[in-house]
């Protein structure tokens, strides 16, 4: 327990906060003290209680015990409006923007300045936003509709929203999960600029690199309990991750050299049309993945990786080239038939990976419910499904409130992902396509998923990994293919390259002759 000093330096103090939900204490006597002008990171695994704590601060939940102080005085925050009035602003992990409104409309929404008859004074607002945007280098197009701008720009809109409301306590809930490496760097710089000006920042994350790079202090939560607060200057990544998980964690993937076998997936001159523009999203791509190796497609988000996987899995139609899987030409197969030799861990676990309103056990047989072991004459064998689900839950340590009958929606992100991994790995197909399998997960879950993928590789599976995380690309893959604007611009050996070189390929600054790839 941190010593509670009465220093007036604390702009926000959350003292002994306890928030209970039936059956679980999401926050158990947590104390968090935020100094003026500091960047304070809140670190914890999925389900550790970070979001609950921030929801309490933002007025979305009322704590059973404990109090919140601002500048040493006790305050009551009953709803987000109270929080805003106290100068607390929050950038949510999933942005809260009106997609069909313009950027400017979104920024002023709820804090509009109006004239005598209730007419909007947009010109005034525009000036203020422009001034803020210039001051902090937050480039946005004020007249673009939110649905048309990039995720990075949407985040800048959210930040401008806070600044427009003159908030001085800024909460960032996992802000980097959706950003490209470049955007992350810009965000870090902006955050530091805010801190220099005396704004106080709460930064929720489980990415240790970022925390070490930007935060002054770190408070760690584990399973709803407060573990401790440390200065980043006095700690290191290993110590932080041990605090967070409660046991020593393997931060680096340990694996032997690959012993690739024969070709499992062969892609030749493959093209997939784009839904956004007239060019191909994937253009004339050729590569192979062999049994017993992890091939990683690296690249900045939006360079055709998603479409490539859609094309390979059959979720989108291709418009050129061929795909051969296990010696069979599957170019024109249905999704179902491709599933015969292919497991697919999808990029978007809520959109594609799970039926959120189904139970865990129903989700675990999403592709397999027609197999004879799970049905007789069209009637689902509930006992068999239950037994299978229980085995997977145990074997892959999928945690949930009510076991097999838990609604997928009520599970934490990490466990949702684990359930998908369990399902796809257990289908035991020669090829596993894994798209950003560790996105948004904490180190404990990442460690687990990485070790699973390596284990599958060692069992002779061919693994095609699509990742935006450079660390993951470097540590997990046996070969790296870099995609840029729909084409593969380089093949690299992770042992012989470095992040800098990889970055140059990803940014399109460097490319090698295509003939070297096939």
């Amino acid at each position, binding site marked *: 327990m941190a010593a509670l000093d009465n220093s007036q330096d604390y702009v926000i103090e959350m003292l002994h906060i306890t928030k209970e*939900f*039936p*059956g*679980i204490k*999401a*926050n158990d006597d947590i104390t968090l003290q935020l100094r003026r002008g500091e960047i304070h990171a809140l670190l914890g695994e*999925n*389900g*550790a*209680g*970070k*979001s*609950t704590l921030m929801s309490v601060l933002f007025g979305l939940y009322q704590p059973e015990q404990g109090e919140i102080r601002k500048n040493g005085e006790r305050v009551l925050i009953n709803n987000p409006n109270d929080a805003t009035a106290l100068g607390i602003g929050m950038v949510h992990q999933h942005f809260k923007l009106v997609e069909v409104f313009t950027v400017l409309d979104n920024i002023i929404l709820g804090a509009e300045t109006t004239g005598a008859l209730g007419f909007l004074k947009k010109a005034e607002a525009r000036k203020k936003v422009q001034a803020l945007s210039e001051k902090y280098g937050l480039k946005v197009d004020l007249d673009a509709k939110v649905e048309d701008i990039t995720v990075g720009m949407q985040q800048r809109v959210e930040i401008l929203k806070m600044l427009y409301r003159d908030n001085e306590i800024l909460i960032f809930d996992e802000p980097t999960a959706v950003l490209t490496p470049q955007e992350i760097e810009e965000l870090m710089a902006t955050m530091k600029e805010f801190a220099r000006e005396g704004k106080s920042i709460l930064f929720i994350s489980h990415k240790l690199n970022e925390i070490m790079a930007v935060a002054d202090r770190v408070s760690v939560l584990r399973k*709803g309990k407060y573990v401790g607060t440390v200065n980043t200057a006095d700690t290191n990544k290993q110590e932080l991750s041990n605090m967070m998980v409660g046991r020593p964690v393997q931060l680096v993937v340990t694996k032997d050299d690959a012993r690739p076998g024969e070709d499992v997936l062969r892609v030749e001159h493959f093209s997939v049309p784009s839904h956004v523009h007239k060019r191909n999203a994937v253009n004339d791509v050729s590569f192979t993945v062999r049994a017993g190796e992890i091939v990683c497609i690296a690249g900045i988000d939006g360079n055709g990786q998603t479409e490539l996987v859609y094309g390979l*899995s059959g*979720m989108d139609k291709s418009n050129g080239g061929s795909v051969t899987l296990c010696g069979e030409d599957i170019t024109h197969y*249905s*999704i*179902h*038939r*491709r*599933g015969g030799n292919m497991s*697919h861990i*999808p990029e978007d676990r809520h*959109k*594609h*990976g*799970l*039926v*959120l*309103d*189904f139970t865990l056990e*129903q989700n675990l047989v*999403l*592709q397999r*419910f*027609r197999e004879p072991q799970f*049905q007789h004459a*069209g*009637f*689902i064998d*509930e006992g068999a499904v239950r037994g299978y689900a229980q085995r997977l839950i145990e074997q892959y340590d999928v945690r*949930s*409130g*009510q076991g097999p*009958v838990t*609604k997928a*929606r*009520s*599970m*934490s*992100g990490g466990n949702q992902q684990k359930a998908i991994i369990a399902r796809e790995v257990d289908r035991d197909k020669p090829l596993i396509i894994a798209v950003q399998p560790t996105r948004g997960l904490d180190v404990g879950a990442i460690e687990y998923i990485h070790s699973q993928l390596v284990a599958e590789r060692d069992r002779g599976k061919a693994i095609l990994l699509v990742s935006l995380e450079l660390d993951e690309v470097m540590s997990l893959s046996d070969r790296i293919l870099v995609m840029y604007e729909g084409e593969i611009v380089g093949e690299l050996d992770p042992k012989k390259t470095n992040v800098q070189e990889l970055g140059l390929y990803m940014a399109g600054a460097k490319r090698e002759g295509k003939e070297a790839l096939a």
Partner: protein
Amino acid sequence: MNQKEPLLQREGAKSVLASLLSIAIGLAFGALAILVVGLASRDLGAGSAWEGIRLIFGGLFSTGRGASGALTWGFNGQNIGNMLFRAMPLIMTGLSVAMAYKTGLFNIGAPGQYLMGTLASLAIALGIPSGALPKPLIWLLAFCGAILAGAIWGAIPGALKAFLNINEVIACIMTNWIAANFVTWMFSISNFKNVVENTKSSYIYKTTYGLVDGKYVSGAGIATSKMGLDKVFPGSQINGGILIAILFAIGVYVMMEKTTFGYELKACGSNRHAARYAGISDRRNIVLSMVIAGGLSAAGAGLYCLSGNTEFFWSTYQSLPAIGFNGIPVALLAVCNPIGVIFTAIFMSMLSISGLQLTNLTAYNEYITDVIIAVIVYLSAFSLVIKMWLGRRKDKVGAVDANAEPLVPKSEPKTVSEAKGGDEA
């Protein structure tokens, strides 16, 4: 849910409670309306209002007025039988809406499918000359013909949705009116129009009329078997159709909850993208869902028309059958549970029987029950909101996981306006 959960925290219990609450509020509102009308009217008064309120709640067991002029109560087989008879087609249209809803489709096309079922069943029943085939076979052909016609009619919006991504609500509304005009046209050029009972115009023969030597003769046609139910509920219109409707409800329940087909349909309904990802053909399932929904609606029409004691007013081009639309509140009030549909359909019919009793025994008229039904219909759309509210109060299990999705009920099936669901693809 095999865990030891308190009864009130179960999903199902909450749904039932929410529906009961809607009903209670609706009835209370009706009672209030009766009271206000009674006190405000010169002909009525507090005494009549009290009678009216009792009839609204217990009209089913009213047996008229005794010698002293007071209301008498007791088992009324005719009332109960008629209630079940009226519930019969409602169960079917309710099932149609409920089943489509579970697949993420809002079948507002039930009236049109019902009309197509009416056309097919009557045309087959009246078109086959008496004696050409055994009567049960004619009945079966007419019933199956109705289902087929409704299925085809349901397939149209289904296919438009699946292949062209046209909102099924719009397509259903259009096919409804096409059906109304088509059916009117077909009957107007047919020779099924009742010319024997001259007092009636624009009616089609009951199916008890049969074609003998080019003329329709009463008693030569077909009618659904009473299966002895007329002995239990003497003097009522009831027949074996109600049992068939209940069997259908059980069948739909089993199909949706126990079979791989139902699993596929529900997967498509709750997340079309995930279903596609898993290799389930979402298009095929959307079409099939509407085919089945259409067949169910039309089967209701078949049961109703083939009863033998119903007459069809064929000139329908200006109005769609209320039974079709009433399937929507029946389904919503049952939270789209096929078994629940049986009970909500019976409840709705009970209200209309109460309304009749009100008209017969007091100076009130039956339209007051329409007010009650309207309130319940509104509330049934809210029953999901009520359910959520119950959920907040009674348990917060949904929030157990601190990092789970926010409590905002994205998942809850939505109110009617949102019910079109799943077409944002």
